[in-house]
């Protein structure tokens, strides 16, 4: 047993730091403050990373992957967070890219993978439907073969950042007569195809990041089918397995706790000391740091033992606990802001959060919207309750 990283791993960390430093500083600053400009900041970042060969390290080598060990991948994610580099768009890097590389024809790989890695195509995810949330396999969006095309009708929802998307990867029902998992296929099509309509959904933080997408007789060429017809559920499971790796976002939460500490050091309490010196506050922060350390050690254990790269059932634990700790950190920041978190913007309904021109600082104005927004993390990507069920089935045999 050994706790230390090897000298090679430390050198690897230094190499990555040098690359991440090439991402423009103002983008990293905006990312830290939660004020990124979409889509351009992410596009610029992805191109810098791609130019240095680190945009899609998890892909097969011939398509830009790096064959890193799980520990190296951990260091990559960790350093990226610590340097406030925006994470590559998950829909491209961890979802559709690996699916195309695994299941699609050579022609489709050549057509899509380079552009997907470079964020020349911005993908969005067409999975959830109003009646198919945790029970994804019950999805109803229908695709009917008509000569060289599929005709798609139905509705998707929770389509994150769909407003910036060029293409959608979409689960559709191609055979309604068989067991629900067996009749699903995955189609790719541009968001500007006639019959595709996007409607934004405002979330409780006031922001717009998810959408409903409606399909009305959308004609999709048959060559845009990923792999084989009715193979979609296998592809979806493969994708969701990838989605959960790195979802604990430990490095990110670490930066938020560091931020909390920095802020608490500047705030004076009624007793005259700083908030950081307040025993109850310090205890809450210390316990959170420890909780995060325990999760990080768990992630390292999983990484160190899964050298074969197979998904580990412990990834459900990482998602479950990682969500809780992200939420705890956001709650802590909102509580540090206290009453200064009440104002969020000027009177214009379209004004961004954090823009009220008063003495309450911008970070405080953003703190509760962010806290509210982060209630999503225990719901998306398989809710906490679903993760517990996976643990029950896959680990405990219940």
């Amino acid at each position: 047993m050994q706790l230390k990283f090897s000298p090679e791993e430390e050198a690897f960390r230094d190499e990555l730091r040098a690359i991440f430093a090439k991402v423009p500083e103002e983008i990293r600053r905006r990312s830290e403050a939660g004020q990124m400009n979409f889509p351009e900041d992410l596009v610029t970042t992805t191109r810098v990373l791609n130019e240095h060969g680190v945009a899609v390290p998890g892909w097969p080598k011939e398509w830009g992957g790096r064959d890193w060990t799980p520990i190296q991948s951990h260091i990559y994610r960790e350093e990226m967070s610590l340097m406030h580099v925006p994470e590559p768009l998950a829909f491209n890097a961890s979802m559709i890219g690996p699916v195309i590389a695994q299941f699609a024809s050579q022609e489709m790989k050549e057509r899509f993978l380079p552009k997907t890695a470079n964020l020349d195509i911005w993908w969005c995810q067409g999975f959830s439907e109003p009646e198919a949330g945790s029970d994804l396999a019950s999805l109803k969006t229908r695709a009917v073969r008509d000569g060289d095309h599929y005709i798609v009708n139905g509705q998707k929802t929770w389509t994150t950042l769909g407003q910036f998307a060029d293409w959608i990867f979409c689960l559709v029902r191609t055979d309604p007569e068989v067991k629900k998992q067996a009749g699903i296929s995955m189609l790719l099509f541009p968001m500007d195809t006639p019959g595709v309509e996007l409607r934004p959904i405002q979330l409780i933080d006031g922001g717009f990041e998810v959408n409903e997408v409606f399909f009305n007789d959308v004609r999709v060429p048959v060559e845009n089918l990923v792999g084989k017809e009715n193979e979609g559920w296998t592809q979806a499971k493969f994708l969701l397995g990838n989605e959960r790796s790195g979802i604990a976002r430990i490095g990110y939460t670490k930066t938020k706790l560091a931020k909390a500490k920095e802020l608490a050091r500047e705030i004076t309490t009624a007793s005259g000391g700083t908030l950081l010196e307040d025993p109850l506050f310090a205890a809450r922060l210390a316990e959170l740091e420890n909780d995060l350390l325990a999760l990080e050690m768990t992630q390292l254990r999983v990484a160190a033992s899964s050298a074969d790269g197979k998904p580990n059932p412990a990834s459900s634990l990482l998602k479950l606990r990682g969500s809780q700790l992200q939420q705890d950190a956001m709650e802590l920041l909102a509580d540090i802001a206290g009453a200064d978190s009440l104002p969020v913007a000027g009177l214009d309904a379209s004004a961004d959060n954090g823009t009220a021109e008063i003495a309450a600082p911008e970070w405080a104005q953003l703190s509760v919207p962010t806290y509210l927004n982060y209630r999503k993390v225990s719901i998306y990507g398989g809710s906490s309750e679903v993760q517990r069920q996976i643990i029950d089935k896959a680990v405990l045999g219940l």
Partner: protein
Amino acid sequence: MDFELSDEQTMLRDTVREVLTRKYDVETLRKVTDTELGWDKGVWKSLADIGILGLTFPEDDGGMGAGPVEFTSVMTEIGRALAPEPYLDAVLVPGSLVAATADHDTRAELLGGLASGELLMAFAHLEAGDRWPGAKVATTATDGKLTGTKVLVGHGDCADKLVVSARTDDGVGLFLVDANADGVTRTPYRTHDRRRGAQIEFADAAAVRLGSGDAAQVIADAEVGIQTALCAEAVGAMERALDLTVEYLKTRKQFGVTLSHFQTLTQRAADMYTQLELARSMSLYATTALSDGICDPTIASRAKLQICRSGRAIGQEAVQMHGGIGMTAEYPVGHYLSRLTAISHTLGDAADHVSVLARTVGDHEMVMVG
């Protein structure tokens, strides 16, 4: 980074598991822990014969020169089996203090005795009113005689020799005392987790100093080792408490179906698993740090905090999910709750460790591993 046992270490673990599981079911455990001694000399002999008792002592002193990875593996097995044998109290702790302080001849004699199983020792340190991390050490050493009272001496009832902390002209010293000497009075007791201990009063008891100079650092280092060992033991206990609970959910029927059909129970079982794995991770953190040569009380506190939190959650939930049967002494799960509670109250509970960590939370920007 590597958190796996080597083949040799796996063999060691399996051997200890074999010895302990062959011996202990709950019935035997109750029978053995109801005797005056409270543990089994046959098991002790087996542990000595397979080299466990001398495992961590230097090879020069007749031991096997093994380290934290090995002794924590043993502790986890002790935790799993709830084995009452005093490996930690009677061998590991006094042995490490002797190894750190005594001269060559004394080491050879004492460590050799401990390794063979013929000698039992105990560390007499805590006094009335001590609360971790404080230890006032009001016992005094004057002209080779000790005077004072040590209240909570784990397995002090059966020890042949004692390592005793006492105040001297040059700080706190460690002393070797014959437990049966004149001026030593022992009042033995049983603990709620069926272990043994003694309050020991020294009235001008003859003592030989171990090493010289202030022993505060030696004691502090020993405490890091003890915390690390207790964390590993707790992981074994939590593992079994969860196993028993899962097994019960799969077999116990109510309303015509097994309890595993009720999500209100299975969702909580998943949380128990999460708590177990977090505890295991932090136990490994403490073990690997120590094994890498980092003897750091902060790391020990970090591990112990998680162990205390997980231990409470798992122990309580295990009993609750068993229902009435979990309350009975005839069934093992309650004994695990008792042991986990005892571990959490040894060398600081969760609140104590949060308090320690909170005091230094402003000293670092973030916690880094490795």
